[in-house]
């Protein structure tokens, strides 16, 4: 399925509605991506003002989710779409939920950044958080690109990438435990770091979900809770 396949209806209005809906989802993705990169920047540079700004801006994401959800309901009610169109709308309804949750996690990270900014900073200024954050924001970016281009290959790559994020999270957690055992006074700070890492890891999961919806949308195949990879389609 190509992007142009979406615009192949007898009703011009319906084409435009579907196209607008898709554009809205992608612009929501843009807002969420900005929120995430700002939240990561806030934690890495110890900028409490930026962190609070991210936390306060989450309402923008929520507003977009409500607007898109309403538009989806309207299209379902008035157009009774079928096949590919129905899959597109269903995938969008699920995608925006995940995007909104990513927004929530970014809000949480922003808030943690403002708290961490007031505490001691380690000498590496949270390099491991920055690495995990960059990794996750690349995943989100690729997920949204796959959504825009309806690219199953890219989407599959992102789904597989999630495992590496999980490993990285595991590592940070282990490191944090070591810090806490070495110096119990740092527990309060390191707990916040763990929470931030946890939020980042969750964002990776949400990005993976979005890619699974992309695969569902294009191929009509539900790949949730299955193992993707070389043995992707054993029956073929």
């Amino acid at each position, binding site marked *: 399925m190509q*992007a*142009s396949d979406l615009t192949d209806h007898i009703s011009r209005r319906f084409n435009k509605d579907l196209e607008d809906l898709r*554009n809205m989802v*992608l*612009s929501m993705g*843009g807002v969420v991506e900005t929120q995430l*990169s700002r939240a990561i920047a806030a934690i890495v540079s110890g900028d409490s003002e930026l962190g609070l700004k991210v936390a306060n801006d989450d309402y923008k994401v929520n507003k977009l989710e409500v607007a898109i959800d309403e538009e989806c309901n309207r299209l379902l009610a008035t157009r009774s779409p079928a096949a590919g169109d129905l899959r597109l709308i269903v995938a969008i309804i699920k995608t925006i939920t995940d995007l909104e949750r990513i927004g929530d996690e970014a809000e949480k990270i922003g808030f943690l950044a403002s708290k961490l900014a007031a505490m001691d900073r380690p000498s590496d200024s949270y390099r491991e958080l920055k690495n995990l954050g*960059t990794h996750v924001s690349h995943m989100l970016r690729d997920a949204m690109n796959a959504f825009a*281009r309806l690219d199953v290959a890219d989407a599959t790559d992102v789904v597989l990438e999630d495992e590496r994020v999980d490993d990285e999270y595991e590592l940070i957690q282990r490191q944090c435990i070591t810090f806490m055992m070495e110096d119990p006074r740092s527990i309060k700070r390191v707990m916040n770091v763990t929470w931030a890492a946890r939020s980042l890891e969750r964002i990776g999961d949400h990005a993976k979900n979005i890619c699974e919806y992309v695969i569902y949308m294009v191929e009509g195949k539900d790949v949730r809770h299955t193992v993707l990879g070389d043995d992707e389609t054993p029956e073929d």
Partner: protein
Amino acid sequence: MPDASRKFLVGLVCLLAAGAGIGWLYDAPATGVLAAALIALFWQVRHLLAFVRATRTRDFEVFRVGDGIWQQIFSSFSYQQARAARYKRQYRQLLREIRKSTDAMPDGAVILDENHEIVMCNRAAKALAGLKPKKDRGQRVDNILRDPKLTKLLKSETYARAIEIPSPVRDDGWLNCRVVPYGADQKLLVLRDVTESMRLARMRRDFVANASHELRSPLTVVTGYLDTLADDEAMPRDWAMPVTQMQIQARRMNRIVSELLELSRLESAGPADVEERVDVGGLLSAARRALGMPGDTAPIDVVVDSAARLRGSASEIESLITNLVSNAVRHTPVDGSVTLTWRSDADGAELSVTDTGEGIDAEHLPRLTERFFRVDRGRAREDGGVGLGLAIVKHILGRHDGRLEVRSERGKGSTFTCHFPASRLAMPSPATLRGERRPA
């Protein structure tokens, strides 16, 4: 008439005449003409079919030699075809050259149609923004470069500003985006990698901020001791003069440092928020009370023609007014006058400070807002100016979408006017107006 056509007509007429002649011999001339015409028709149809077959099989051997009408048709047909093919080749060559030159451009260029959909993009755009020339054709550009700022710029229809967005392919990279409309609803999106210059600008900002910050603490110590010394009764009389001088200079330095810090704060912060409603008229009156000293300075008049409130930061607007008014007062003799005006109309509002002071030469006007710029190098330092006031004014205006206009004539005085767009204004509700009319 070409040769072939004449020959064809003569042949046709001869054939018909021959048919008529033979028919006349047999006493049926009409039948003879009809038979001749049928022969001619049969001959032409055969050639027509052969020609159509030849255009399909590209085997024109039959038509290549000879000088009949069909050979004539074929030669002009093949000439047209060859010319079209030559043009096609030339245009393809030209297009390839253009593509090559756009690909050689260091800046990314993306051609957009009226719906902001990608028509074409060059190689740099591919590298800078991660666009895929084939796959992304027909895709809206802000579906791939999903920065809210770019979406806003594309929606703005005027495309007046260039914006910086984080690079989608390079970590910590920045792209400068500019939209140039052309032709019938086409747009060119120009992308430029500004990572380096953004980094340099940030380094410069950080340097000024850090240096000012570091200078502050030693200065505090110095002024502290100088103040103690100045108050010391036991100090020898000869020292009084140098100590006072040092005190004055230390205070000046303090002011420079705090203004530099203010400036770097203004530079690094985003646009001023629009939630606060600033009562500009009230601030002008307050500036008159604070800076006008009857007898010492020129009298200050305040003219408030508008009840409009400015949406922005009150503390910044206050600092803007203080800077402009203190400049005016400093450069106006006691017998002159300073007028502060606030007025608004449908297009926006303006705040102006007019004085009857010495004025500024036209050649200096463009450089007025530069840091530490002085019109008169020798004199200005004595009257307590630091040289950062107008730079601060410019930055505050920039954060409020405003614009500074300076009119001045040597010996007659100057007018500094700050223009604000209508989008930055808010009309107060009647209730608040009534509340403010009460005598303070």
